[in-house]
């Protein structure tokens, strides 16, 4: 095994991941990026998407939303608002969220006085990523 990098995924509810891995791939705002061991110091904002990492033969995918990533001294820290593994995703809830967001964006939201289009857009993105990660294609 070659060199590894320490990966840390921290959410307000605690540390989600803290282990040494071979490679991390994450969705940056200006495109996906990969991090290997001894990466140069790096700071990037993150999009809603899937963070994946490999450790030997093990490959893990985590859904992350809203945050940023800092790499320094062979350590990659991801500070995100939420992080969920595929097995932790509530498919039913994600489906409902998707339908609601779609309805709102389709025009129903305009009738509401506190309608926030960006928010609905983000909710839709989150639910789509969740469903994708949970292994359902819609």
């Amino acid at each position: 095994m070659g060199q590894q990098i320490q990966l840390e995924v921290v959410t307000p509810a605690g540390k989600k991941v803290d282990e040494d891995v071979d490679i991390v791939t994450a969705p940056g705002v200006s495109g996906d990026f990969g991090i290997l061991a001894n990466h140069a110091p790096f700071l990037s904002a993150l999009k809603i998407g899937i963070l994946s990492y490999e450790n030997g033969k093990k490959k893990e995918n985590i859904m992350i939303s809203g945050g940023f990533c800092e790499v320094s001294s062979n350590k990659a820290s991801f500070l995100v608002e939420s992080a969920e593994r595929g097995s932790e995703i509530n498919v039913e809830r994600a489906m409902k969220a998707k339908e609601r967001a779609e309805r709102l964006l389709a025009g129903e939201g305009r009738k509401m006085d506190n309608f926030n289009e960006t928010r609905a857009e983000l909710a839709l993105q989150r639910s789509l990523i969740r469903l994708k990660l949970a292994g359902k294609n819609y």
Partner: protein
Amino acid sequence: MASLKEVKLKITGVQKTSQITRAMNMVAAAKLRGAQDKMEAFRPYTTKFNETMSNLASGDSSGSFPLMEEREVKKVELVVFTSDRGLCGSFNANVVKEAWKHLKKYEAEGKEVTLLCIGKKGFQLLKNTGRVREGYKDIMGKFQMFHARDIASNVSTRFLAGEVDKVELIYGAFHSVAVQRPAVAPLLPVVPHIPEGEKAGMSGDYIYEPSIDELMVTLQPLYLNVQIYHAMLEVGASEQAARMTAMDAATTACKDIVGSLTTIYNKARQAAVTNELLDIVGGAEALK
């Protein structure tokens, strides 16, 4: 002296109260543990976040961001965090007193003050001041990030629109289970603190994606969320700790009252027995 029956009733009443206070004490203890765990879990996030923020701030940037703009302070907003429920000793009263003190101070300086109350108790205690702009209720103890986000966007929108020039948080900080003190923390304008000994340019070799300015723009709203969420967590834990102590004191007080009432009850009982004996003896004497 109160009649035997009255005293007996009173004793049962006090005993029932003490059952309630003891139960509340235990519930608060359990909830406190939960709240402390949440605080513990949140700590790595804040630490890392502040590190990155100061790292960014010490880097080269154009240095002018709307959320960091320092203007002449004419209007101040105080965000007061209290609990939603009472029966927790002087916890809420202390926070409100602190808020009141700051309000007076700013008004003495000729500034306009508005209040934003998070938590039902603070709202109730402060609404008579006529300075409360808005109140958030029933969100304490749920520890939801999106509540913090709501509050943050509420406050920052007003700051950006120039309706307020300075925002401060007032909350009950959790020092230990026995000590909770009101604390004041500045929120807006954002002043990232650069740790001592670290000079600008330390992080010059970082690769920023997108640019450092854009990163600042994304991170600053997050920074507000973090600060507000932190205050909410502290208040959540402090509230339970304060309630635990208050209920413990109440249970002890109940025990004392039951003790002194029992003495009264026994004295009354004895007096009654003596009286009856005297009657009987008197009756027997008369028959001789």
